[in-house]
């Protein structure tokens, strides 16, 4: 599935200072019944966002118009649990392009990059600074610069660098995905499979 290239995202951010946000919260299983990748953003954080009668829960951050933006900031161990890529689809479909946390669960991190969301892992101290900055001013902007691999709280100019491997960075900057890469090495795969005689 093609996605938009990622270079620099400068945006306000939505804070969710909760630890261990698992993929069952990001998108509950009962919303996984689609056979197409459409409309998942409507059910992002469904049970935190809506009451049983489908009215919005007023105290949940996505229902608070003060907060908006392309960056979601979550507590540590973001995305644990199920491998459902639907969690990443829901985040993307809602309009986020980056998720910031001090720690990500493995499968979520891989799924996010594969569909064009940048997971930005910062130190716990910097994560606190971001939460504090947004708390002080919900319109505080965060800048994520993928080419430079930096994340900056714009108002205070505090900044930190983050890791990403060169291959994945190249993919995100160009909107490529792994399937393009694998298709280009089909012969090599066939030779390997034959030698293995599977």
């Amino acid at each position, binding site marked *: 599935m093609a996605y938009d290239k990622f270079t620099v995202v400068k945006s306000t951010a939505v804070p969710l200072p*909760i630890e261990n946000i698992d993929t069952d919260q990001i998108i*509950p299983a009962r919303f996984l019944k689609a056979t197409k990748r459409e409309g998942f953003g409507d059910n992002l954080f469904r049970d935190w966002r809506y009451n049983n009668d489908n009215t919005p829960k007023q105290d949940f951050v996505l229902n608070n118009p003060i907060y908006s933006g392309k960056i979601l900031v979550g507590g540590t161990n973001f995305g644990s649990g199920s491998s459902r890529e639907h969690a990443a689809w829901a985040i993307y479909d809602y309009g986020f392009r980056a998720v910031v946390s001090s720690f990500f669960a493995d499968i979520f991190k891989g799924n996010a990059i594969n569909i064009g969301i940048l997971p930005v892992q910062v130190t716990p101290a910097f994560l606190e600074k971001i939460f504090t900055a947004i708390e002080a001013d919900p319109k505080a902007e965060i800048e994520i610069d993928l080419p430079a691999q930096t994340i900056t709280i714009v108002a205070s100019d505090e900044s930190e660098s983050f890791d990403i491997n060169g291959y994945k960075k190249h993919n995100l900057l160009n909107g490529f995905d792994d399937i393009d890469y694998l298709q280009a090495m089909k012969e090599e795969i066939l030779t390997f499979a034959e030698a293995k005689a599977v």
Partner: protein
Amino acid sequence: MANTLFDKVWDAHVIRKIEDGPDVFFIDRHFIHEVTSPVAFLGLESRGLKVMFPKNTFATADHNTPTINQHLPVADPLSANQLQALESNSAKYGISHWGLGNPKNGIVHVVGPENGITLPGMTIVCGDSHTSTHGAFGAIAFGIGTSEVEMVLSSQCIMQPKPQSMRINVNGKLNKAVTPKDVTLYIIAQLTTAGATGYFVEYAGDVFENMSMEGRMTVCNMSIEMGARGGMIAPDETTFSYIKGRELAPKGEAWEKSLAYWKTLKTEANATFDKEYTFDAADIEPMITYGTNPGMGMGISKHIPKATDLKGGVATYAKSLAYMGFEEEEAMIGKKVDYVFIGSCTNGRIEDFRAFASIVKGRKKADNVTAWIVPGSHIVEAQIKEEGILDILTEAGFTLRQPGCSACLAMNDDKIPAGKYAVSTSNRNFEGRQGPGSRTLLASPLVAAAAAVTGVVTDPRELMN
């Protein structure tokens, strides 16, 4: 440098190493189910790609299948649509498909091993995090996302950086009523839900050496709940005799050849791991969880910890206990239980039903409990009947449902109602996992059985002679 079991299997499957990037990693066996595959097939279609090795992919319907009246059309149109998509995609690309009604149908991680598809030394993936189950055979097995399902279908490869290695040793003799589920809940409580993120785990020590294949699968299954990509156990005679004679396992000369290779799959004596933990079997008692992640577990006779005794996350802890309706320092024993669920790819195998029946035998289901007893596959269901377990269950007032994931993730009608408490042998106690507002207490089949006959959280040791 001396190699670990994990190194041996991983390195044998790397086709290309990308500098400053992942390995191009060859996959031997690919399982698909109805929920995470439809979009992958759409992707194939929109790119005009084919399935490269259809014989290496196996499809089974499990996540949103009903567990009663499976002979009738599936009522929920969305579920029916997904099941239909799995069937037609499999037919279109020549993938073997075990749909509803097929005698081989069942939960993907139960049917793979019991049909001899899962073998030592293999790389196995599925769009489902509990694929780690298959590591019990000394395979590298892990869950993948739908984009990766599309990769495996189209190229039999995925791109993965090699994880770090961890070894978890548990030595000694297990206490009374301590099952493999308790061992894994204990380990996760020690390491926390993120304690093994970035690692691939090898389980070693006499506790695992003495464990049945069913038990090893339970342990490897839960590896993901401490963040690990997967877990594995070196194959041995227990493994080989489990596999021998299974329908799709190698036979004759191929068996001998495979066996010779499988016997080499061991961690060398002086190999080192990036991280290593050692636990004493004597410290483990029957476990139960009290919170909203699988790391929030404790010995069943203990009291819920105080927030101030935790390493951090006090705010989240309070939120979690409020969701569960529990307080710090409360005992779990004696808490009222509304539902009992035995099943799932964690504890839906024959041994689990034997354990459940051992406690239920000669007792009656508690009136306040609704029990869902769900075999992991039709093969397990048949064993339950053959071994007379069904008679024990029926006598005690229980009924047996048909195979599927069921209340493990509540995508079908098997949903625990909001606010109700369920003692569940599944793997996740996240908020709403078993239905919106449901409250899950993860435990072993013995603890589940004790709750089912007493109606409250009960120490199973009290019901055993």
